[in-house]
């Protein structure tokens, strides 16, 4: 028989067996579909769901002025292509103290306070200035927020802010008010001229786009045109410029104990990897239960004079110990490599680690007890862990995602979300066990651990202890 004939016979045999294994077949097709769907959503959410390639970043706005004028500013901020203003329309407003606390807890990165009596045209003189409360380490969000603020506030002030700011700069340079008034007048003329030019240019570009794609007619008034979205690169000190232009005061909230070399990205990566990899590892440990069933040793254990639930408890103990050792090694390595200050607060670290290990063990045991075979457990666990990791913020900060309501709810229900919240809270915001946010994150993990261990015991009795 030729090599090709024999190869074809073998291939046919494999194909027959492959297509007969229905569960494997379904998983083989469903897994990629599920992953494509979830990651498509997430990537779309990262770009604001608009497909414009620019993420919308959350900016919490506190309107202390409460006037029509401040409402106009908020409206323009909401219309921004790059900002996602919180709280949403109709949601309860926050106070300045709430915003400060949220920045301190790491729930938000930036909050804009519109103080009572704020006016653009007098901003540079005696009226209160806009206040940006920020976590200065959140650089990625910061650049985008600055762009959004400049765009939106310039539109809201109809150019007055620009002139006021320019007057300020000239006054600082020692030029008297009469000359400043002349410059401002010339500036108004210039503004009209440039405004007209920009309008014309915008119309031309829109027309060109319309021609290019007749069905792409969803472009809104404020769609940034080519070149404009890159204008805010911080390479030329946009924050300095923004504070001058916007008459913006800044209030930085940085935990004093945060190590100087820790960046938000490092804290995010260390937390994300710890959270995700531990799940994979503990699921592997849990599958020993399935291996014991498959090799017959579980049969012997079930016939021993021991309570049947002690078999599950024994596995849980084993997994907890392995998980804690793995976390200790990961922590040590992360500390040596990145100096993230993990051991600053051993109590918080220990309780957080134990909470996540318990939740991870619950997950691993649940998968092992509910799956029919090791193969099924492996496939299920991979899909679930990847989805939970993505939605829980292990790969990208959830604050950068603009998820649809149900996915946002799903994200906030995931055990990975709360683990990330805890680890990020500890590493970045330097939260400890006195923080409500930290305790809440720990409580969620214990809740998940209890639920999953309970389910694992139930499925173990149902699937492993027949009769």
């Amino acid at each position, binding site marked *: 028989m030729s090599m090709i004939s024999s190869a074809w016979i073998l291939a046919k045999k494999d194909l027959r067996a492959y297509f007969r294994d229905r569960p494997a077949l379904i998983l083989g097709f469903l897994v990629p579909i599920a992953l494509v769907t979830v990651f498509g959503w997430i990537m779309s959410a990262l770009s604001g769901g608009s497909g414009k390639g620019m993420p919308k970043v959350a900016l919490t706005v506190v309107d202390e002025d409460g006037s029509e004028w401040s409402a106009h500013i908020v409206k323009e901020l909401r219309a921004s292509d790059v900002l996602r203003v919180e709280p949403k329309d109709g949601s309860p407003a926050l106070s300045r103290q709430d915003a400060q606390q949220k920045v301190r807890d790491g729930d938000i990165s930036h909050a804009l306070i519109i103080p009572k009596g704020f006016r653009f045209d007098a901003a540079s003189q005696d009226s209160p200035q806009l206040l940006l409360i920020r976590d200065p380490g959140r650089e990625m969000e910061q650049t985008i927020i600055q762009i959004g603020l400049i765009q939106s506030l310039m539109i809201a002030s109809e150019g007055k802010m620009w002139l006021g700011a320019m007057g300020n700069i000239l006054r600082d340079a020692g030029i008297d008010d009469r000359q400043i008034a002349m410059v401002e007048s010339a500036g108004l003329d210039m503004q009209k001229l440039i405004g007209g030019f920009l309008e014309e240019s915008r119309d031309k570009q829109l027309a060109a786009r319309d021609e290019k794609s007749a069905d792409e007619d969803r472009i809104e008034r404020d769609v940034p045109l080519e070149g404009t979205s890159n204008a805010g690169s911080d390479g030329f000190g946009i924050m300095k410029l923004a504070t001058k232009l916007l008459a913006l005061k800044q209030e930085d909230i940085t935990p004093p104990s945060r190590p100087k070399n820790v960046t938000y990205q490092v804290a995010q990566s260390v937390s994300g990897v710890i959270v995700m990899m531990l799940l994979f590892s503990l699921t592997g440990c849990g599958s020993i239960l399935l291996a014991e069933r498959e*090799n*017959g*040793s*579980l*049969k012997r254990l079930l*016939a021993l*004079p021991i*309570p049947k639930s002690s078999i599950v408890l024994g596995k849980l103990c084993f997994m907890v110990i392995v998980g804690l050792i793995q976390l200790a090694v990961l922590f040590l390595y992360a500390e040596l490599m990145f100096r993230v200050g993990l051991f600053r607060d051993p109590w918080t670290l220990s309780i957080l680690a134990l909470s996540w290990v318990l939740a991870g063990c619950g997950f691993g045991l649940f998968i092992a007890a509910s799956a029919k075979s090791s193969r099924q457990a492996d496939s299920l666990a991979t899909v679930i862990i990847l989805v939970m990791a993505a939605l829980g913020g292990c790969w990208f900060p959830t604050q950068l995602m603009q998820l649809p309501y149900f996915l946002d709810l799903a994200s906030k229900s995931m055990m990975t979300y709360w683990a990330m919240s805890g680890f990020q809270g500890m590493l970045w915001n330097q939260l400890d066990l006195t923080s409500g946010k930290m305790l809440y994150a720990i409580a969620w993990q214990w809740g998940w651990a209890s639920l999953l261990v309970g389910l694992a015991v139930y499925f173990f009795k149902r699937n492993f202890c027949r009769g």
Partner: protein
Amino acid sequence: MTNQKIFEVQQLRYAYGDRIAVKDIDFDVRSGEIFGLLGPNGAGKTTTIHCVSGLLADWSGSMTFLGNEFRPSRLVEQRRLIGLVPQELAIYEGLTAAENLRVFGELHGLRGSALKQQIAEKLQIAGLEDRQRDLVGKFSGGMKRRLNLACGLMGDPKLIILDEPTVGVDPQSRNHLFEAFEKLRQIGKSVLYTTHYMEEAERLCDRIAIMHEGNIIASGTVAELASEAGSATSDLESIFLQLTGRSLRDE
């Protein structure tokens, strides 16, 4: 061998859904005897020993151990009376032989010198004294089978259940296992032995029950079975085929 019944089963019945696997069977095991459950594939042998060892709970009928009602699936302490040696190699390859025995000894509640003594005894029965510190993963199939038996003996159970204990074993190891089974009988242990190897049953078992389609169709010594089958020969294989027929069986 004495005639004292230590374990008795009456009207044992078990069904997987609509399919009745064991149909109201009666048998008993006496002190110091090897009682064989012999039958073709799918006869109900494994289901029977799963009921006896507590792996299955929803059976009907009655079981008594030394005159007391026996419900090993529900009463943990009753499981101390039995030692199951499954057909599979239910041992841990990542541990040494001695560590395997230690695990099962500790799960039987043994500690200290009692545990050490039992480990030494069982290693001797399995003929693995010299290899006790070796990882089981490096053992031959026969050595693993012997260790599988030794693990089932930890805790000194009164009734040892051997489910096809010689599957895939080379002649030397099989012979060693036979000697070990005979030694168990000599020290007064009772054994419930399932197999479909006729020569094994003939050589080892004091009494044999032949199972067929969930029923016990004949039981007794080989001579009694021959008489019951009306067979001119005392060859167990001929008796077995006469009683169960010659058609092929599926699991």
